[in-house]
C-alpha cells in the first residue's frame, strides 16, 4: 500500500512540474510551490482550462498541508460550497480506494456516524454506530434499511410496528397517518419540479407554437389539486420556491384552452394534431406521486383542445436512459434538488454541457446560465435567472407543472425525527427511548454504496450515514454546514477555495483523515484515465454534472 502511494506521489510531482513549466503565465496560483513538510500532493491542470479536450471547471486540487486542501477553478463558481457538500463527493480513505480497485461498492469506509455492518442483498442493510465518531455519537446503536416499492406496504409495516420510519407516504395516506396518534407525519418542503419535456429536434415539437399550445392546454391547478398531496404547489418556473434564486411572479403558462387552439391553428393544425406517445415511468417520485393517473389526465386535457397523444409507459431505467440520450420526444419527468442552488436545476438541464434530453440546446439560454453560474453578486444572479425564466417561457422546451410535496412518517416515539427537503434524513440525529434499533423503510434497494457513482436517492441516503463530505447540509434543512472541513475560505473572485480539515477524525478502519484522502477521493472521480476511476458503472454522473467534465475524458462520450 505504502509503496503504491509513493509511486503516485512521484507521478503527481512530475505532473505538477510539467504543468508548472507549461502554464507559467497562470497568475491565479499566486503562492509558490508548496513546502514538502507533509506529503504534499498537488494536481494542477489549470492549463487545460478552456481547451477543447476539457469541459470541466476544476483546475487544480492540492493538499497544502496535512489538514488543508485547496481547490482552484477555471471559472468562478458561487455554488462551490453547496456542491462540495453533496454526498456524491464523500471522502474515502485513499488506501481503501486502492484496495478495492476504485469500487468500494459493497464495503464503503467513511468517517460518518454509522459504519456498514452488513448488506444482505435483496433484504436489508444494517448499520452500526461508529463509537469513535468525531461529533456527538449517535444514540441509536443500530439502523436497519429495508425497502418496498409499494406505499401501502410501507404504511402497513409502520402501523404494525415492524419498521420505525417510512419514506414517501402515499398521497391518499396522509390523513391516515395524521389521524393515528402512534405516528407522526413530517412533510417535506417541495424542493423539486415536475415538468412536461420535449425534444425540440423532433417533429412536431420542433415547432415552438405546438409546445406553447401544450403549455396553455394544461390545467396545472387541476393536476395539483387532484393528484398531489397537501403541501404541493402549482409550478410557475423551473426552480421551486425553496431555492434562493426563485423569482417571485415569473411569467408562465396559465390554463387557456382558447389560446391553445389558436396557437395550434397558427402552427397549421386547425383540426388538431396527433403528437404521438407521451412517455413516462410508473414509479412514483416526490415530484410525481401518481404517474399513471397524471399521464391519463394530461392526455385527457390535451385531447380537449385537439392535441391527441398516446400513453407510453416505460420501465424506469429504460425511460431515464431514453430521456438522457434524447430518444423521447414528449415525456413527463422531474427533478429533485441535490443541493439548494439554481445551478443544480438550470445547468443540469439547459446548460451548455446538458444531455440531449431537450434536443440541441438554446444558445441564448446557455449564455445566460453560464453568466449566472459564475457571477458572485446574488442580485445580479437573480436578474440573470429571471432572464432564464423568460427564455424558458419563450422557447418552451419544458413546461413546469408542479412542485410535489411529499412526506415521511415515523412512530410517535422517535425523537428528533425529521424530513429533509434534500431527502437526506440523518438517523444519527434521532433517538428512541428504550430501543437500540431503528428500522427505516424506503422505496428501493441501493444499486451500490459507493455514491460517487450513484445518482439514486435510495443509495445516497445510505451513503450519507456512512461517508461524509467536506461540508454538509444542516439536519432537516438546506443550509451548508461544516462537516469534515471545520471552515473554508475563498479568494475574492471565487476561483480558489481553501478548506481546513477537522483534527483527529478517523475512518471506520482506524486510519486518520488527512488532506491526501480528500485529494484522492476527488482525483479518482475527476481523472477518467485514473486506474481507480472505476465505480459501479464508471459514469460518475454527478461529478460531471457538478464540475462540467472529466480530465482525459474517454473518446466516445455520451453513449453509456
Amino acid at each position, binding site marked *: 500500500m505504502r509503496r503504491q502511494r509513493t509511486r503516485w506521489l512521484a507521478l503527481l510531482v512530475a505532473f505538477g512540474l510539467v504543468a508548472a513549466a507549461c502554464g507559467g503565465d497562470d497568475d491565479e496560483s499566486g503562492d509558490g510551490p508548496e513546502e514538502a513538510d507533509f506529503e504534499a500532493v498537488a494536481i494542477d491542470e489549470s492549463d487545460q482550462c478552456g481547451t477543447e479536450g476539457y469541459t470541466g471547471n476544476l483546475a487544480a486540487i492540492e493538499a497544502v498541508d496535512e489538514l488543508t486542501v485547496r481547490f482552484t477553478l477555471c471559472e468562478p463558481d458561487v455554488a462551490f460550497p453547496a456542491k462540495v457538500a453533496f454526498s456524491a463527493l464523500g471522502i474515502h480513505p485513499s488506501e481503501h480506494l486502492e484496495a478495492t480497485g476504485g469500487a468500494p461498492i459493497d464495503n464503503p469506509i467513511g468517517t460518518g456516524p454509522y459504519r456498514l455492518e452488513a448488506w444482505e442483498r435483496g433484504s436489508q442493510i444494517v448499520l452500526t454506530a461508529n463509537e469513535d465518531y468525531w461529533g456527538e455519537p449517535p444514540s441509536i446503536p443500530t439502523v436497519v434499511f429495508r425497502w418496498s416499492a*409499494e*406505499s*401501502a406496504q410501507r*404504511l*402497513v409495516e409502520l402501523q404494525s410496528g415492524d419498521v420505525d420510519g417510512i419514506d414517501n407516504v*402515499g398521497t*391518499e*395516506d396522509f390523513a*391516515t397517518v395524521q389521524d393515528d396518534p402512534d405516528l407522526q407525519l413530517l412533510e417535506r418542503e417541495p424542493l423539486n419540479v415536475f415538468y412536461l419535456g420535449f425534444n425540440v429536434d423532433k417533429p412536431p415539437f420542433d415547432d415552438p407554437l405546438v409546445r406553447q399550445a401544450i403549455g396553455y392546454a394544461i390545467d396545472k391547478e*387541476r393536476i395539483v389539486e*387532484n*393528484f398531489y398531496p397537501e403541501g404541493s404547489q402549482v409550478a410557475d418556473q423551473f426552480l421551486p420556491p425553496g431555492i434562493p434564486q426563485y423569482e417571485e411572479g415569473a411569467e408562465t403558462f396559465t390554463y387557456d384552452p382558447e389560446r391553445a387552439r389558436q396557437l395550434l391553428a397558427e402552427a397549421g393544425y386547425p383540426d388538431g394534431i396527433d403528437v404521438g406517445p407521451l412517455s413516462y415511468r*410508473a414509479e412514483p417520485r416526490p415530484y410525481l406521486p*401518481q404517474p*399513471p*393517473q397524471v*399521464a*391519463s*389526465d394530461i*392526455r*385527457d386535457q390535451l385531447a380537449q383542445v385537439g392535441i391527441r397523444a*398516446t*400513453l407510453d*409507459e416505460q420501465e424506469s431505467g429504460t425511460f431515464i436512459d431514453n430521456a438522457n440520450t434524447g430518444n423521447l420526444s414528449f415525456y413527463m419527468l422531474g427533478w429533485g434538488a441535490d443541493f439548494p442552488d439554481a445551478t443544480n436545476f438550470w445547468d443540469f438541464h439547459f446548460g451548455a454541457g446538458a444531455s440531449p434530453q431537450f434536443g440541441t440546446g438554446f444558445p441564448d439560454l446557455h449564455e445566460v446560465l453560464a453568466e449566472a453560474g459564475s457571477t458572485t453578486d446574488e442580485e445580479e444572479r437573480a436578474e440573470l435567472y429571471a432572464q432564464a425564466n423568460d427564455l424558458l417561457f419563450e422557447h418552451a422546451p419544458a413546461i413546469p407543472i408542479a412542485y410535489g410535496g411529499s412526506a415521511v412518517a415515523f412512530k410517535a416515539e422517535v425523537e428528533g425525527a425529521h424530513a429533509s427537503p434534500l431527502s437526506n434524513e440523518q438517523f444519527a440525529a434521532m433517538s428512541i427511548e428504550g430501543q437500540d434499533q431503528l428500522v427505516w423503510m424506503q422505496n428501493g434497494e441501493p444499486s451500490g454504496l459507493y455514491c460517487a457513482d450513484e445518482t439514486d436517492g435510495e443509495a445516497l441516503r445510505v451513503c450519507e450515514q456512512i461517508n461524509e463530505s467536506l461540508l454538509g447540509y444542516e439536519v432537516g434543512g438546506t443550509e451548508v454546514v461544516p462537516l469534515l472541513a471545520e471552515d473554508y475560505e475563498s479568494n475574492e473572485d471565487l476561483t480558489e477555495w481553501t478548506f481546513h480539515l477537522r483534527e483527529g477524525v478517523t475512518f471506520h478502519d482506524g486510519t486518520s483523515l488527512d488532506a491526501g484522502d480528500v485529494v484522492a477521493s476527488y482525483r479518482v472521480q475527476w481523472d477518467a484515465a485514473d486506474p481507480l476511476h472505476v465505480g459501479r458503472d464508471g459514469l460518475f454522473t454527478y461529478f460531471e454534472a457538478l464540475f462540467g467534465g472529466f480530465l482525459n475524458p474517454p473518446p466516445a462520450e455520451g453513449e453509456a
Partner: protein
Amino acid sequence: MAVEEIPLGEQQAGDAEPALQLERGGLWRQALRQTFRKRSAVAGGVILGLLLFIALFAPVIAPYGEREVLIATEGLRPRAEPCIHLSVDWIPDVPVLSRAESFLEANGFSCPSDRPQHLMGLDGNGRDVFSRILYGARTSLVASVGAVGFAVVCGTVLGLVAGFFGGRIDNVVMRVMDVLLAFPALLLAIAIVTARGPGLFNAVLAVSVVTIPVYARVIRSRVLSVREQDFVAADRALGVSNARILVHRVLPNSLTPLVVQATLGMATAVLELAALSFFGLAGDPDTAEWGRMLSVERNQLFTSPHLVFYPGLMIMLNVLAFNLIGDGLRDALDPRLNS
C-alpha cells in the same frame, strides 16, 4: 362437422359404450346435456352468459364512457366512494322495502339523489368505475378468446401433423414444444412482450404462444391412437389422400380433449392477460382492462378498497366461469367417468 365416426375411438371402452350410443343426438349435444346436468357447470354458464351480455351491450348499459373523465364536469374528487341512489321511483312502495332502504341509507350505502350516481365509485382519474368494469369485460373476453383461439389453431395443426406423420417431423415439432414448455408460462410471456414491445395484441400473442405446446400435445396423443384405427386403415386402402384423412377422420375424432383443454385454457388466459396488464405490458394504460385497473390503484387498497375490489372480483368471476364449464365438459366427455 363430420362426426359420424366418433364412437369408434371408444370401441374398447367397455360396457359404458351402449348407453352412450342409445342417447339421441350427436356426441356434442350429449356432452352439453351431460355438462349442464351439473349445477356447478350451470353456474359457470350463467356467469359466462352474463359476462357475454355485459361485453356485448357495454355501451348501452354503461352510464359513462370508457375514458370519460368526470373531474371537471361533476365536481367530484378522484377515488370518490360508490354512490348508489336507493330512493328511486320505480321501487314499489312496500313497507319491507322501504325499511330495508332506510337501513341501508343509515349505514352509508346510499347517497343523496343530488349527487351523481356511481355504483362502484370513481377511479384515480375521476372516471366511473362501473362503466370501466363493463367495458373491461369486452377487453377480457375478446383477448382471452383471441389468445386461446390462436393457440388452439396452431397447436392443432402442429399436433395433427406431428402425430399423423410421426418420424422426424414429429421429433422436431415436439422437441420445439418441449423447449417452450420448459419455461414458466408467465415468464416466457413476459419475455415475448418485452421483446415485441408492450401492447394488447402482443400480450394476446404472448399468452397464446406459451400455450400452443399444451394443445399440440393433447392433439398429438389422440392422433397417435386414432391413426391406428380401422376406419383410417380403410380410408388408406381406398386411396384417400392424407389431407382428407387428417381433416375428415383424424381431426373430428381428436377434438373432445381439445375442447376441454381449451375451456380450461380460457381461465388461464384470462389470468395471464390480467397479470401481463398488471405489469403494464398489455398496452394503453387507459384501456378499461381489469388487471390494469387493479395494478394502477393497488396502493389505495386500504383507502379506496372499491378500486381494487371490483376489478379483482370480475377477474375471479371470469376465471371461475370458465373453470366450472371446463370441469363440467371434462366430466361429460371423459368416457371413463360416464356411467
